[in-house]
Every structure is written in structure tokens, then in C-alpha cells.
């Protein structure tokens, strides 16, 4: 167990290192170079050279990577000339919002999908199972931003329940909560199918297990068997799906943030890609990836910790 945890953590560190090399390499393979991206195509050769010296861009790439990585480890992810702020302070401002958005979306998706999947598994291949499948599949097949637009259409323009944009996010707690509703909902609906389909098959598998028959034999009511025995066992594997779903939900949040003008990391990243603000691009990808890796690691370790049947002996 301890060996597994250590090995798994080491693996996460290695993966993080490779990500940083890939992303750094990509950004430094740029046509035109970083300096041109910062001060524009009309800067003189002299200015370009000056900035290149100042930024250390004339050093060999591995050295540049070393310097950058050392700074990144110290929390210094560079400076954005477009925002005139450090990338670190921008992330400190934008990242918590995205984490809130993504986190509440995952929780909401689970809260919807677990009962739904349990119900569907119990009543598989009946009319209610099929109709729930159809509905979740349609949402699943929709692009996230289309779901968002439909929500705006119904909940914002028709019945004026929630604001159609989150651009003013950060004003007050009350308005923030209202601003969050549509983005969270839009991000959730497309992902419910992931979890509910998995929960459904986990339920079906659990229903065939001996312990369920034992529960019935002991005189447990169907509800009790379902909740105490089936639910508990199938929820485990479904919850661990969260770790693997994080990259997908974060990707979804990029689109949703762009749609709702939600001032999170996704919008920051998208704006940076439009203005070619490379320090931000690099910093955001790195931080978002590290968040993903930590999420995966957490899910894996939680799975081992929670489920006594899983034992990693190596």
C-alpha cells in the first residue's frame, strides 16, 4: 500500500515534468519568437535584441528551461505584459473561480447521476430507463455551449430567473451565486451521462452479486438491498470516475467560460491565446494540468483507501 502510494506519487511528478518540457518546448518553437509576440512585428531589431538579452532568450534552450522551471517551482510563472501583472497573481485571481465552477459542476453531476443510474440499473430496459437514457444521451451529444445557449434562452430570456452572463462575477456573494447557476448547469448537463451510464452498469453488475442475494435471503426489503448493498458498492467505482473526468470537465469549462464571460482560468487562457500572451498560456496549461494530475492522484488513492477489496501489492 505505502509502496503503491509512493510509486504513484513519483509517477505524478514524472508526468508533471514531461508536461512542462512539452509545453515549454512548444512555446519556444514559435514562429517569430516570444519577443515579437510581446512587442509586436514593428519593433526594431535593436529593441528585439535588447529584450531577448533581458529575458535570457539567447541562452541555450535547456538552460532557459532550467531557469524557467526553477522559477516555476518557486511560484514565479512569469510576467504578462498585456495585463501588466505576474502570471501568479492572475492565476490566484482566476483559478479559484474555475475550481469553484468545475467543483460544483462535478458535485451536481454526481448528485444527479447517482440516483439516476441506480434507478436505471434497477429498472433496466424498461420505459423509464430508456427515456432517461435518451435524454442524457441527447445532452451528452450536444456541444456544451449549445446547452448553455438553450439555458440562457429558457432560464434567462424567457423567465428572467438568472443572468445570461457572468461577466460581473465577483461583485457580491449574492449576485455571484446567481451568476454561477447557468454556467454550472450548462457544464453539468453534458456530463451527467458519463456518470449515470457508468452508475447504471455498476448497479446492474452489483445486482447480480452474491451479497445482494444474501441480503434478500436475510429478508431485506428491495429498497434496503438497493440502498445499503447495491448503492454503496456501485457508488465507489462511479466516484472514482471523477478523477478521470477532470480533464473533460476542465475542457468543457473553457468553452462555458468563453460563452458566459465567466472570469475563470478558461477565459483567461482563451483571451491569452487571442493576444498571444505566452507567459499566461504556459502558466495556465501547467497549472491546469497539475490540477488534473492531483485530481487523478487523489481519485486513485481514495479508491485504494476506501475500497478494501482493492489491494496493490507491488
Amino acid at each position, binding site marked *: 500500500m505505502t509502496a503503491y502510494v509512493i510509486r504513484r506519487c513519483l509517477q505524478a511528478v514524472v508526468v508533471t515534468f514531461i508536461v512542462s518540457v512539452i509545453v515549454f518546448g512548444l512555446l519556444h518553437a514559435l514562429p517569430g519568437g516570444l519577443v515579437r509576440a510581446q512587442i509586436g512585428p514593428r519593433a526594431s531589431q535593436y529593441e528585439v535584441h535588447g529584450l531577448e538579452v533581458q529575458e535570457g532568450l539567447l541562452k541555450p534552450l535547456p538552460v532557459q528551461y532550467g531557469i524557467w522551471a526553477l522559477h516555476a517551482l518557486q511560484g514565479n510563472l512569469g510576467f504578462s505584459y498585456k495585463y501588466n501583472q505576474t502570471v501568479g497573481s492572475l492565476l490566484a485571481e482566476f483559478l479559484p473561480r474555475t475550481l469553484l465552477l468545475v467543483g460544483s459542476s462535478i458535485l451536481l453531476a454526481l448528485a444527479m447521476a447517482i440516483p439516476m443510474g441506480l434507478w436505471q440499473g434497477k429498472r433496466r430496459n424498461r420505459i423509464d430507463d430508456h427515456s432517461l437514457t435518451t435524454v442524457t444521451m441527447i445532452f451528452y451529444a450536444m456541444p456544451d455551449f449549445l446547452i448553455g445557449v438553450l439555458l440562457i434562452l429558457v432560464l434567462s430570456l424567457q423567465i428572467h430567473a438568472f443572468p445570461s452572463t457572468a461577466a460581473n462575477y465577483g461583485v457580491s456573494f449574492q449576485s455571484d451565486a446567481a451568476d454561477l447557476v447557468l454556467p454550472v448547469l450548462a457544464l453539468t448537463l453534458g456530463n451527467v451521462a458519463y456518470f449515470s451510464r457508468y452508475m447504471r452498469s455498476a448497479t446492474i453488475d452489483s445486482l447480480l452479486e452474491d451479497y445482494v442475494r444474501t441480503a434478500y435471503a436475510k429478508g431485506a426489503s428491495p429498497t434496503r438491498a438497493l440502498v445499503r448493498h447495491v448503492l454503496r458498492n456501485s457508488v465507489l467505482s462511479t466516484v472514482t470516475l471523477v478523477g478521470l473526468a477532470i480533464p473533460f470537465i476542465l475542457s468543457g469549462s473553457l468553452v462555458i467560460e468563453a460563452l458566459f464571460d465567466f472570469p475563470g482560468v478558461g477565459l483567461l487562457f482563451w483571451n491569452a491565446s487571442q493576444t498571444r500572451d505566452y507567459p499566461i498560456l504556459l502558466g495556465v*496549461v501547467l497549472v491546469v494540468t497539475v490540477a488534473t494530475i492531483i485530481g487523478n492522484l487523489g481519485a*486513485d488513492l481514495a479508491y485504494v483507501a476506501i475500497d478494501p477489496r482493492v489491494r*496493490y501489492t507491488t
Partner: protein
Amino acid sequence: MSGGVPPDAGGGDRELLAGATASGATTALAVAGPVAQTGEVPARPLASWRLSLSTFAENRLAIASLLGLVLITAFSFVGPLIYKTNQVSANLLLQNQPPGAAHPLGTTTAGFDELGRLMVGGQSTIEVGLAVAVLSTAFGLVWGLVAGYVGGIADAILMRIVDALLAIPFLFFVVLLASLVRPTLWLIIIVITSVSWLSTARLVRAEALTLRTRDYVKASVGFGSRRTRILFWHITPNLLGVLIVNAGLKVADAIEIYVAMSFLGLGLAPPATDWGTLLTEGIDNFFNGYWWQLWPAGFLIVAVVLAISVLGDGLRDVTEGRLQRRLRSRTRFRGDRFES
């Protein structure tokens, strides 16, 4: 990432299949020697394409999906031959006209005929989907085979690279790449492929790891076959079923990513277009009341993705699940995105 998550129930099916074809390692040990001739003759292996076909034909939803996909593809590629419209130059005199006799689905803001526009957009969208599926399958196959079959340090290095790229939320990676290059059809294909091949590589590696212990592979090694021969004559053919299903689902994934890219402004530049761009334009204009610019593109995207999912589901029943089908009903669902 390499996960303690037991993937959606595929393992049981495969073991059963292995037993049925008497190629499981333990079974084969027992069968080795003269016992094989004198012993009980095992039931005729069920795994024939005829059975596969009938299993598939039973699944009416999958058949309907296949039909729908064929229709939509024909609509996009054959349609323009029948329904001829000007899709090259904008005509502002015709902009935003509601559906009518001259334009069954109205016109766009640039004055293009919407129905014709959907056909042209369908071409690039379907092309991207198919090309990404083919490229990422080919690339993932080679990568996964090398990792899974050669093993050792090569495996460790190759798979850590896959782990790393998979850990980057794919849309961030796509936007990063797309912001470095100007979007042309081929570059879009390459950009999407760069995130799409990863799960294929993992899948192939996992399959190759189990296949390399099979007896026919060992026998071939015993004959002195070269590695490439084993990989392409013994391992790859046995991967085909899984790969085809995977590739099919990749088409849907690629289209979804492409649509998201278009929404983020990284799609094709006019006069070329795609469904994602049309949908995005439709959204921009929807609030002006031009509903005909939104729904058709949205419908086509949802229909294609949905149909591919259902079809992939059906094909998966054929390739892996047929023996336990009755027991388990259809539970599989594009889980490969997560599992791998």
C-alpha cells in the same frame, strides 16, 4: 491515470471469449499434446463474423444510426451535386432571409443559402472526423504496439509521454496548438489528432500486453518469426475489432472537439465553413430572431454524435460483448474516453 479504476465490465467477456476459442494460457496448457485429439471436442467457436452480423442486425437502434449516418454523409457530399448553390461569394442582398421557396432553410448573414451551407460545412466536419479517426488510430496503433510489445524502458518512456499529454485538459492543448498556427483543414486535423491518438495508444498497448502471451504468438516466436511479422500478422489482426469500434467513436470525439474549436474562433476561415462555425454564427444571430441559422446545424451535430455513439455501442456488443449479452443487457457506453 493508470488508474485503479476497473474499467466498465469488459474483462469478463474477454475471458469467456478466450476460453471459447481455447487460446487462454491455462486452457491451452491442459490441451497441449495428444489430449487435444482424443479429448472432448470443444463446441464450435462462436466467434464467427456471421454471428457478429446477426448480433448487430438484432440491434435496430444501431442499424437506424448507421442509416442516419449514411444519409447525413450523402447529404453533405452528394447533396451539392443535386442542390446547387453559390457557396463561394457572399451576397449581402440576400442576407438573413427566412426560409422560403428560393431558400428552403433561409440564408446566412453573409447571404449564403443555409441548406447548401450545411452541406459544405458537413463536408469539412465529416472529413475532419474521419481523418482524425484514421490518423489517430494509425499513430496510436504503432505507438501502443511498440510500447506494449517491446516493453521495458521503451514502454516506460512512451507511456509516460502519453500520460503527460493526457493529463493536459485536451481543449487547452488544442487551443494552445491552434493559437500557434493558422487554421487550415489539415492543421485542424493534425491538432485534433494530437490529442485524439492518446487513448488509442493506451488501448492498443493494453491489448498488446495480453495478446503477446497468447500461444499463437509464442508459437510464432518459436518458429523464429521476426518481431514486425508477429506484430502485423498476429497481434494487429486480433486488435482490429477493438480498433474499429474505437476509431468510430473517435469520429464523434473529433467532431465535438472541432465544434468547440470553431466556437472558440479557431475554425476555418470563410468561405470555407463547418457545422461548428455555422452553429456559432447561428447562436450569435439567434437573438436577432434568425432561428433558421441555429437549429439545423445544432440538429446535425447532435444527430451525428448521437448516431455514432449508438452505433459504437452496437459494434462493441458485436466485438466483445456477445457472449454475455443476455446477462448484462447493453451497458456499454463510450466509456473508452475514461477507461483508457
